[in-house]
């Protein structure tokens, strides 16, 4: 219980710090949302000033922050200047899209990474070569190659993400899956070398662990050694890595989103930063931070479930 309370306190402090930092950095950045309107012919400066006043009458940064905190506690994250919509509704849709993309990517990377990383013998060497090859190619290049290949093969999926408004029929699901394939593949490939590397390294170390050697010396069936001795031994760092992966679900996909035109959170945030749409930026960054914290928490829970030693310390 104390551990949990401590974690929650830590999380709250870091969230507070993140939101403060966001606010401070954004207000330190030159220009504001209305900068661009200054170049519009036909809008007078009085009108512009009036518009500024209307959207944000509390000028001082501290006051604005306090006001923001108050309304955020009530669940109101303000309105977006560029979309004229409540930030909450805007973000929830984008977060769903991004989660869909990165969860598929993460899942793919882990399934492939575990399968490839657990291979042995000459195939493992092949995987190692393949991994370093993938690792040496920058992710943007990989994604771009993928995109161009799809273009060449005329397999580029259409770009509208179907909504649940239209009902969740099989056809919808198929079309959604079709659109997800390419961008999530790009994400998975980018993440794959990390997973393979950690799986391979963890298994190599685990195979030499004294307990595993003892199991071999007792002549246990190979499958049992793998499942009950080697894998649990190798699991701890992998669980932490997985937690990190879950934590970065909202923030890892920016590049792929921009490249594939996937309407996710990353793209929204990027645009919001460029046009200084403060409310979106702060709320979006906070969501990422919450995700990160949740990912770490998930890893801790999994570790707690997996490792009896950790259970004991926690009690």
């Amino acid at each position: 219980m104390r551990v949990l309370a401590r974690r929650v306190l830590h999380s709250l402090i870091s969230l507070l710090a993140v939101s403060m930092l966001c606010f401070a950095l954004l207000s330190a950045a030159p220009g504001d949302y209305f900068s661009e309107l200054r170049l519009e012919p036909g809008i007078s400066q009085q009108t512009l000033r009036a518009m500024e006043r209307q959207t944000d009458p509390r000028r001082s940064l501290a006051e604005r922050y306090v006001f923001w905190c108050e309304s955020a506690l009530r669940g109101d994250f303000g309105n977006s200047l560029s979309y004229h919509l409540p930030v909450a509704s805007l973000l929830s849709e984008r977060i769903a899209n991004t989660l869909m993309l990165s969860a598929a990517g993460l899942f793919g990377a882990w399934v492939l990474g575990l399968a490839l990383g657990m291979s042995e013998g000459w195939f493992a060497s092949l995987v190692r070569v393949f991994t370093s090859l993938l690792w040496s190619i920058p992710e943007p290049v990989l994604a771009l190659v993928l995109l161009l290949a799809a273009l060449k093969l005329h397999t580029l999926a259409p770009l509208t993400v179907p909504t649940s408004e239209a009902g969740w029929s099989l056809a919808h699901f198929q079309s959604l899956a079709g659109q997800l394939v390419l961008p999530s593949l790009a994400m998975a490939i980018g993440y794959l070398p990390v997973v393979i590397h950690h799986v391979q390294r963890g298994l190599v170390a685990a195979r030499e662990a004294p307990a595993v050697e003892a199991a071999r010396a007792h002549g246990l069936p190979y499958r049992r050694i793998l499942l009950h001795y080697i894998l649990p031994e190798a699991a701890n760092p992998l669980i932490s890595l997985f937690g990190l992966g879950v934590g970065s679900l909202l923030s890892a996909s920016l590049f792929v989103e921009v490249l594939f035109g996937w309407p996710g959170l990353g793209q929204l945030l990027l645009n919001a930063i460029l046009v200084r749409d403060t409310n979106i930026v702060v709320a979006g960054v906070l969501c990422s931070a919450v995700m990160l914290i949740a990912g770490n928490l998930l890893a801790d829970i999994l570790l707690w479930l997996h490792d009896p030693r950790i259970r004991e310390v926690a009690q």
Partner: protein
Amino acid sequence: MKPVLSIQELSLDYRLSKGKQVRVLRGTSLAIGQGEAVGLLGPSGSGKTSILRFILGMPSPGAETRCAALQFEGRDLLRMTARERHTLRRNRMGVIFQDPLSRFSPFRRISRQVQDVFPRRYSRIDTLRCLSDVGLADPERIASSYSHQLSGGECQRIAIAQALVSEPSLLLADEPSSALDTVAQRHILDLLIKVRAQHGMAMLVISHDPATLLALVDRILVMRDGILYDYDPPRSTLRGSQRSIRSKEIETEVPLLEVRNLRLQHGSSRRWRSWLESHQPHPALQGVNLAVRPGECVAVVGGSGSGKSTLARCIAGIDAPQAGVIYFAGSPLLHTRPLLLRAHLQLILQDTVGSLNPRLTVAQILEEPLRIHQRRPTMSHIQSSVQKDTKDRINRALAAVSLPVEYSERCPPQLSGGERQRVAIARALVLHPSLLLLDEALTGLDHELQQSVLELLGALRAQMGLTCIHFSHDLSQMLLVADRIAVMDEGRIVESHPAAEFSRAARHPASLRLLDAMLAKPEER
């Protein structure tokens, strides 16, 4: 009688870096008859474990073995596939390893791990019975525990139970008792003797400790120069030289080190911080008083959790006490200490794997403290060494711990545990400290090596009045080494007597417990 196991013309090489090879065994032979127990005696790093692994069919990495014939129960093991060897291990051979705690997976309950060893059908009753057969009083609790919840002795009993499940014709035991405390050691040896009497299997026991082997086996083979010889147990003990050193009385009244009312309690100060961090505290100190005269050798003896290590860490300046003063040569020591003082006060730990940088060669490891301390030319102690050739000092330090000069180019991973411990001692000695703290520093060493290190320390004490404080659980050993024994229990020094009178003078229950454990050991020393 047909031997259970016979090895012919076994030679063993270790591959070192840069294509170098070290020959450990050069064509030696071994045969174990049915029901016979054979001991293999040799110093650490002599390749004992490699032989065992070769018999198991799980060769050590980096070891190259050649063998004319290897037969087990009349079958040629060399012609078997890895899978067949695996099955053989399952059905016909039993193994017990040195460090029982790490040989169990921390993620799997003991009951499961014992069940894993059963060939086919098993039931919980079987598991519990086989646990109670090895003298575990509460098999239900043990079976539902994880390995980290058990003691080393319990784990070793379980390991023995596992090895016996398949009714092996050969039991291989690699240092079965050396990582345990003295009480557990005795129990395990008794158990092995009992088990052998019950099951009548052949045994191959490996140890650096002749006493262990003498208690267990019918015949001892000793490894020397790559060949196995029959061992002739020495009836003379190694006490003479020790006695002579201890008899040298050094009469100085001002203590070199004095500890007054030292207290360290975790969690009381910086409460919010400990709340946030929740680390595992070391055992606390509840007001320790201790004085050590120059040239004296004091042993602080106590069971685990008594606070020995915490005291050593406080004196060495690693932990900061919350109350109390440490006087060194009459002046109080602060927690942050000048470099000069740190050279005077050296701590040697048991865990040499962690304390030696695996990437550096032995020469570099020894050079490092010299380099650090040479930057301060004002130090009187070190000043003379500045002019001297560093290499010369390193070689002398190596010679002092009887390591050949060639070792200076090796790295810690290429050394055996005993050799690493010697390097650690050499590193402490290279600065000519006036006070040496040894925290279980002799525990991992084999008998001969312990002896040579003790002789070395004795010589250093005689030459330059080196003062030693041993922190150890092993009373019997400390009685041989130290001038005075201080018994520590629950964060206090409960009593302190000269070593010669200790067994008569000791009154405190903690001291009596230690004496009991010691007396229970086989009387071979």
